[in-house]
C-alpha cells in the first residue's frame, strides 16, 4: 500500500502503455455511450431530431449550415442507421480514422440541434470532445513521421491518452470559467467559493424546474431541501465540500500522471457528479461514463488484483504493469 501511494507521485504523463484488450473494452463501452449521447434511446427505430430546428438557435455546425433536412424521417433514420454501423466498426477496432471522424461529425451535428441548442445544457459535449480527440489521434498516428512513430505511443495507448486529455480539458476549462466569471483574483476559485451560499437560490430553482416538468416531486427533493438548509444555516461546511469540487475540476490533469492517480481522481470526479445529482437533480450520465471508462478503467484493476499476470504481461505495450502489480502488493 505504501508503494501504491508512492506511485501517485510518479510522473508518467504520455508514457503509460495500455494493452490492446483495455482499449477494446473501453471502446465497446464508449460506443454505447456515444449512441446514448446522440440519440437518447435504446430503440433505434424511435430516434428523433427535434422538428423545431432553427438555424438561429442551433449550436455549432448546425448554426452555420442549414441542416433542417436531417430532421426529416428518412434522413434521420439513415443517420441513425449509419451511427449503428459506424459504432459496430468502431467497437471492432477497424478503420478507426474514418469511423472516429464520421462519428464525431454525426455527434456534433445532432448534438448541436438536439442536445444543446444555444448551449442550453452541456450534458453530451464531453462525448463529442472525446471523439474529436480520438479522431485527432488517429490522424496524427497516420501522418506522424517515422521517428515519432518509433518512439511515440502505440495505437491503443495514444487513443486512450488523447481521449483523457480531452476530458481533462473539459473539466479544467469549466474550473477556469468559474474562476474568471466569478471575479477572478489571485487565489483560483476563492471568489467563486465565497459566492457559494447563493447557490441555495440555484438549488431552489432546480427543484422547482424539476417539479414543473411533470408536476411531480423529484425523488431527491428531501436531499435538495437539506442542502438548501445547510447552505443557509451552516454555509462553511457546504462551501468546503463544493470547493473540493472546484479543485478536483481544476486539477483534473492529475489523472494523466499515472494509473493510480487516474483511478483516484477519476473516482473523485464521479463522486462529484453523484453529489451534484443528489443535491441539484442534475444528472451527468455521460461525464460519469467517460470518467469510469477512461480514468477508473476498472477492468485493468480487476485483472491486476485477480493476478492475471499472463493477461497483463503478455502484451509488450504494458511496461508499467509489473510495477503496478508490485505496488498493489506493497
Amino acid at each position, binding site marked *: 500500500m505504501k508503494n501504491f501511494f508512492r506511485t501517485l507521485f510518479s510522473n508518467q504523463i504520455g508514457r503509460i502503455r495500455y494493452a490492446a484488450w483495455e482499449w477494446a473494452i473501453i471502446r465497446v463501452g464508449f460506443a454505447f455511450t456515444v449512441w446514448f449521447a446522440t440519440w437518447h434511446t435504446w430503440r433505434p427505430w424511435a430516434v428523433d431530431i427535434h422538428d423545431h430546428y432553427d438555424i438561429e438557435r442551433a449550436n455549432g455546425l448546425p448554426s452555420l449550415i442549414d441542416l433542417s433536412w436531417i430532421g426529416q424521417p428518412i434522413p434521420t433514420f439513415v443517420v441513425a442507421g449509419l451511427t449503428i454501423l459506424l459504432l459496430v466498426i468502431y467497437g471492432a477496432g477497424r478503420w478507426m480514422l474514418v469511423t472516429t471522424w464520421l462519428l464525431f461529425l454525426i455527434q456534433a451535428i445532432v448534438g448541436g440541434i438536439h442536445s444543446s441548442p444555444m448551449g442550453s445544457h452541456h450534458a453530451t459535449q464531453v462525448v463529442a470532445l472525446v471523439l474529436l480527440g480520438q479522431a485527432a489521434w488517429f490522424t496524427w498516428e497516420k501522418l506522424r513521421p517515422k521517428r515519432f512513430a518509433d518512439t511515440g505511443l502505440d495505437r491503443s495507448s495514444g487513443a486512450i491518452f488523447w481521449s483523457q486529455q480531452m476530458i481533462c480539458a473539459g473539466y479544467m476549462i469549466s474550473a477556469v470559467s468559474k474562476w474568471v466569471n466569478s471575479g477572478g483574483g489571485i487565489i483560483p476559485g476563492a471568489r467563486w467559493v465565497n459566492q457559494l451560499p447563493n447557490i441555495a437560490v440555484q438549488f431552489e430553482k432546480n427543484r422547482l424546474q424539476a417539479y414543473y416538468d411533470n408536476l411531480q416531486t423529484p425523488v431527491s427533493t428531501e436531499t435538495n431541501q437539506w442542502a438548501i438548509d445547510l447552505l443557509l*444555516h451552516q454555509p462553511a461546511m457546504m462551501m468546503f465540500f463544493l470547493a473540493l469540487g472546484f479543485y478536483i475540476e481544476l486539477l483534473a490533469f492529475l489523472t494523466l500522471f499515472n494509473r493510480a492517480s487516474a483511478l483516484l481522481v477519476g473516482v473523485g470526479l464521479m463522486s462529484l457528479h453523484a453529489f451534484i445529482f443528489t443535491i441539484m437533480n442534475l444528472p451527468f450520465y455521460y461525464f460519469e461514463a467517460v470518467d469510469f471508462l477512461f480514468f477508473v478503467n476498472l477492468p485493468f484493476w480487476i485483472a491486476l488484483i485477480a493476478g492475471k499476470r499472463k493477461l497483463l504481461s503478455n502484451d509488450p505495450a504494458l511496461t508499467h504493469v509489473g510495477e503496478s502489480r508490485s505496488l498493489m502488493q506493497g
Partner: protein
Amino acid sequence: MFVAMALCWVVGRDGTRAEFYPLSSFPMYSKFDDRSYLVYLKSAEGEPLPTVPTVSVFSTELKKQYGDDLDDLKEQFKGSHFDWTVDQKRLAGEATLRYLRDVRSPAAFADHKLDGLRLVDVRIYRDGKKIVTREDEVAQLPAQ
C-alpha cells in the same frame, strides 16, 4: 489538452461564455447571484401545467427561451429585468408563448386546446437565511 482548452475558451465566445458545440467554456454555475428566476405554464383556468407532456418542453428550455426574449428587450428598457415591472416583462412573456405555439409545439395548440395559456414568472431571492419567491403572471394567449 491545452490546445483543446484554448479552443473551448475562444471559439464562439460571447461575453462570459463560449459555445460552439462540442467546444464550450462550460460556464454553468460559474458565478452565483443571490437571485434567480424561472417560468412555468398555467391553463386558462389558472391550474399549473406540466411542461413536458403539455408542450414537449423542459422547464429549463422554457426558461432559456424566456431569458432570450427578456434579453431582446434590453435595448428598450434599461437596467436588470429583476427591476422591471410586470408590464415591461409582458412583451417577453408573450414572445415566449408565441414561440411555443407557432414554432416549438404547434401540434399541442391544435383544436384550441391551449387557448388562454398563461406564463408565470417566478423570482427567487436569498434573504439572509431564507429563500423568498415571488410569482407574477406575465402573459396570456388570447382565449377563444
